[in-house]
């Protein structure tokens, strides 16, 4: 065999076959398929919705639609008087419910995404939600302040907690896990102090001054408006999310989050205000937890000092399922919406089918693993 060969020329221009091959390796040609193969979160969400559509029951008929079709138990899609009776997943109420029920987790996840992008974690959001819910209820129900003041109180309380977290993490260099764990415990305690350990509600315990009725404002926040589809709470979540999508993608602060999370030292040497970025990230996380607390109070009609217990885990799950890396520096806000929706829809599909809780937990665990596997495969490729 020839050991030393004459030099050969590398092909000057990439030939057609090579281009073809490169294109093939980039994925399917069809633009729709290509989009789906490159955005697996969307694909997963679509899959969930389609499966949901096939497996949710029709109104008044128990059991998954598909199974009923096979066994011949399904009602006709159009009943005798011409009204539609599709599987429930094809109705707007379900989707409006998913968004509404996920609004609190969603708000927490929005803030959590910011913190996780900086390679941090915030375990305190559940407790901060609790203290904010109690603050809001205390101001509105027990003190009778105008709603705006109560909302400001809740958001301010959340922001304050976040600010302290940020300070502990960036100035005192505590590990985020430890700092926010401390806040998780402390904020829960604070919630109990403010509420005296009771749920603050209209007509409630007599140690504080109580308004007779559930304030109209709280009811309004959770009643369907905007064409019967959206509730103000849902809208608050969506608007917050969209604003943060823009902030993360199109502002310096957003870019700094990635830089700090990816390589803190390199970021610092590039003139990134590392401390400020972290403090702002944690403060915003607290702020959104405060808003979530306000939503929680409106949704339950009371300020529960135990509200939000273990919510931090759901928020983290939504972020991670979306594909934002717990190691920091990689991910996106819009992915968090996907993550939240995937969990929300799966939950809903299982719930409308009246599936036993045990199986739901099982399915949720599986989904988390599968979603993360999909994401990590994308990275190693």
């Amino acid at each position, binding site marked *: 065999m020839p050991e030393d060969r004459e030099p050969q020329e590398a092909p000057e221009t990439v030939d057609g076959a090579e281009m073809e091959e490169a294109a093939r390796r980039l994925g399917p040609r069809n633009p729709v398929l290509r989009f789906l193969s490159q955005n*697996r979160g969307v*694909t997963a969400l679509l*899959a*969930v919705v389609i*499966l949901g559509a096939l*497996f*949710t*029951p029709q*109104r*008044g008929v*128990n*059991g*998954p639609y598909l*199974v009923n079709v096979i066994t011949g138990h399904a009602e006709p899609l159009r009943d005798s008087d011409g009204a539609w009776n599709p599987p*429930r997943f094809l*109705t707007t*109420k*379900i989707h409006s*419910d998913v968004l*509404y*029920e996920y609004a609190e987790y969603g708000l927490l996840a929005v803030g959590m995404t910011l913190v996780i992008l900086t390679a941090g974690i915030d375990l305190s959001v559940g407790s901060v939600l609790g203290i904010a819910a109690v603050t809001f209820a205390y101001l509105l129900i027990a003190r009778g302040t105008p709603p705006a003041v109560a909302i400001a109180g809740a958001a301010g309380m959340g922001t304050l907690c976040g600010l302290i977290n940020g300070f502990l993490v960036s100035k005192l260099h505590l590990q985020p896990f430890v700092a926010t764990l401390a806040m998780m415990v402390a904020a829960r305690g604070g919630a109990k102090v403010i509420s005296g350990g*009771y*749920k603050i*509600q*209209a*007509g*409630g*315990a007599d140690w504080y001054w109580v308004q*007779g*009725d*559930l304030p109209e404002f709280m*009811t*309004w926040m959770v*009643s*369907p408006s905007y064409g*019967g589809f959206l509730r103000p709470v849902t809208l608050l979540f969506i608007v917050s999310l969209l604003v943060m999508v823009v902030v993360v993608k199109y502002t310096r602060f957003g870019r700094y989050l990635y830089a700090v999370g990816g390589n803190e030292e390199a970021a610092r040497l590039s003139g990134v205000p590392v401390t400020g970025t972290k403090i702002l990230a944690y403060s915003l996380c607290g702020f959104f937890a405060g808003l979530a607390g306000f939503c*929680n109070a409106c*949704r*339950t*009609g009371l300020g*529960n000092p*135990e*509200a939000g217990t273990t919510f931090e885990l759901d928020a983290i799950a939504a972020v991670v399922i979306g594909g934002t890396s717990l190691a920091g520096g990689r991910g996106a806000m819009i992915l968090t919406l996907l993550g939240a929706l995937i969990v929300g829809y*799966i939950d*809903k*599909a*299982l*719930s*409308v*089918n*009246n*599936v*036993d*809780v045990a199986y*739901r937990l*099982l*399915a949720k665990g599986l*989904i988390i693993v*599968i979603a993360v*596997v999909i994401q990590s495969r994308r990275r190693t490729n």
Partner: protein
Amino acid sequence: MSTRGMITVAMAFAMVAAVLAGCSAPERGDAGGTQTVVSTGAGPAGTDAGAPEALAYPEGYECVFNADCGWQQEAATKEMNSALSTQPEIHVVFGHNDPSAYGAYLAAQQEGEGREEQIKFIGIDGLAHEGINYVRQGSLDVTFYYPSGGPEAIKAAVRILGGEKVAQNIALGTKLITAENVDSGGEEMPPDEMPGWETADVLDEGDLPQLSGDQYLIGMSQCNLAEPWRKQMDADIAAAAADHPELKVLFKDAQGKAETQQAHVREFIDQGVDLIIISPLEAQPLTEPVEEAMKEGIPVIVLDRKIASDNYTCYIGGANVKMGREAGKWVRRQFPEGCKIVELTGLMTSTPAQERHEGFLLGLNTPDSELGTEAPAVEPAEPEAPAEPTEDDAAVEPDANAAATLTEEAPAEEAATE
């Protein structure tokens, strides 16, 4: 390419499997998988149910939706949303506690189609600032008062310390509270008669003994003070003990940890208390410490949940089955022809939820003859029961401007139904 395919298939599989596994349950006739009656022996009614034949919803009473809400209001709202979107017809929502029922009410109300008007919401617990409040607001149609047993425990303690013998098992009853009777304290429902069980009335037979010693120390171990009802229990005990200056009660909170509660009992023994009151978190882990105390000669009063042996001085509780049963009977009376029911259970791995569910089925299966009627004939008989008027009133007593609250109700509801 193939891995992506595999993952999609796996995902589809996971969902299909979960949906199918869960969905087959309602079609089998009983909702959910945990419906076989578990006779834990804790409830007075459950023990004599005879053959362990599975209880089910009777003919005509269909459970169209059933979900484990883990006692959580938020979870109940969420599940109720699902029920509302799949079930065109719902007549009754039975929540295992008041927050669950209230959460379901809010779901119906927030849907904005006025369905909350057509559904009867049943709760349990009847705490002053929760269930009673919701009934007064008109959110819940009925709630069943869950006595804490605190005042009875102090009475029993005084008798035991005074050298008397008290019945080993004392069953508590409940109170049916509706909008009509909420201001008069509710309708008494004394416990069912069972062999081996006495009612709380025995504690009022004869004068309480005069305690001789100058100071008695009672150790009270509460399993989890984060629950409002248990907070109420401690408050009841403290209030009742305040009438006996010679008693001093030491309160401890195990914060939901069985190990901590075990430690409590040992500490009480070391401290040399004269009597122990315990509301155990779980039966098994606390059996041994309680037996140890008994061996040391310290009497032990067990509240609400039992321990796994008969080696205790006095047990007071057992209202869970009773409350479920009365709820079931109430449904029977309201809908003699049958109805469609949504059951939002508590944490089904816990005994109270199991007993409330079991009691509910017992109540629904009650033969017509034993139902009792809405007939006022029964009513006068009930209040005559010499129940402890003071304590009960404390628990149910509306705040001073109750009437005012009631009248302010209307505008709020108007706003809600818009």
